């Protein structure tokens, strides 16, 4: 799974982040929380500035994790001839 280390670290910090920064974006690289930002673009720019072009986790701090539904992708309907 991509960003496994970062996701595991987010889970450790999640309760505290939710308490103080719900709705914002956490930037985690490896096991370091580099900051919390109002917008994901800010987090990305800061991550690039600090660590360069490396994998990073920009995580929306929210209680409910979003599930994406993309029928064309998941059901192979993109070019179905029905």
């Amino acid at each position: 799974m991509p960003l496994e280390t970062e996701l595991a670290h987010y889970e450790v910090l999640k309760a505290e982040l939710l308490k103080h920064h719900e709705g914002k974006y956490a930037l985690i690289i490896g096991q370091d929380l580099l900051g919390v930002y109002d917008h994901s673009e800010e987090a990305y720019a800061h991550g690039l500035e600090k660590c360069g072009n490396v994998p990073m986790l920009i995580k929306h701090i929210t209680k409910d994790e979003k599930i994406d539904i993309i029928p064309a992708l998941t059901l192979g309907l993109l070019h179905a001839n029905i």
Partner: protein
Amino acid sequence: MPIFNGSLVFQPAPGQPVRPSPQALIGLGPIVPLQVGIPKSLASILQAASQPIPPPVPGIGIVDTGAGSSCVDDGVVQKLGIQPVGVANVGTAGGLQTKATYPARFLFPGTNLPSMEFTSLIGADLSSFSTPGSPQLLIALIGRDILSRFVLVYNGAQGMFTLAY
């Protein structure tokens, strides 16, 4: 207001006028000329480090009103050297699947639509999807997150659609 009027045509018989084909639009869906490039902030970092900036990858995007989130082809982001910035939980018939998400810049060549940047496009293998009649590769699904910035008019009867920004 920047406006793109899109339509698809089948090769008309000799002597016949070229006109939009409702059947082609049914078959392929609304197709937009697209280039995927690296975000401006990444370009700045590469430039500062005197590293080459990869040119945008050309292809097509399909407007997919059934998708809540937009997707970009995995191969394209790898070619551009863009690193993942998150994960998305995609619901499938077999349960949840975790996919990496990427930042990218979309450009719409040949239109007056402005370029725009995104920080959480879902990476997916779009190369396996066929787009018969189009010589260009499908490189993005344009979902409702991107469409939230546009007005979309789908004129199926005339075989046309309009994207206004």
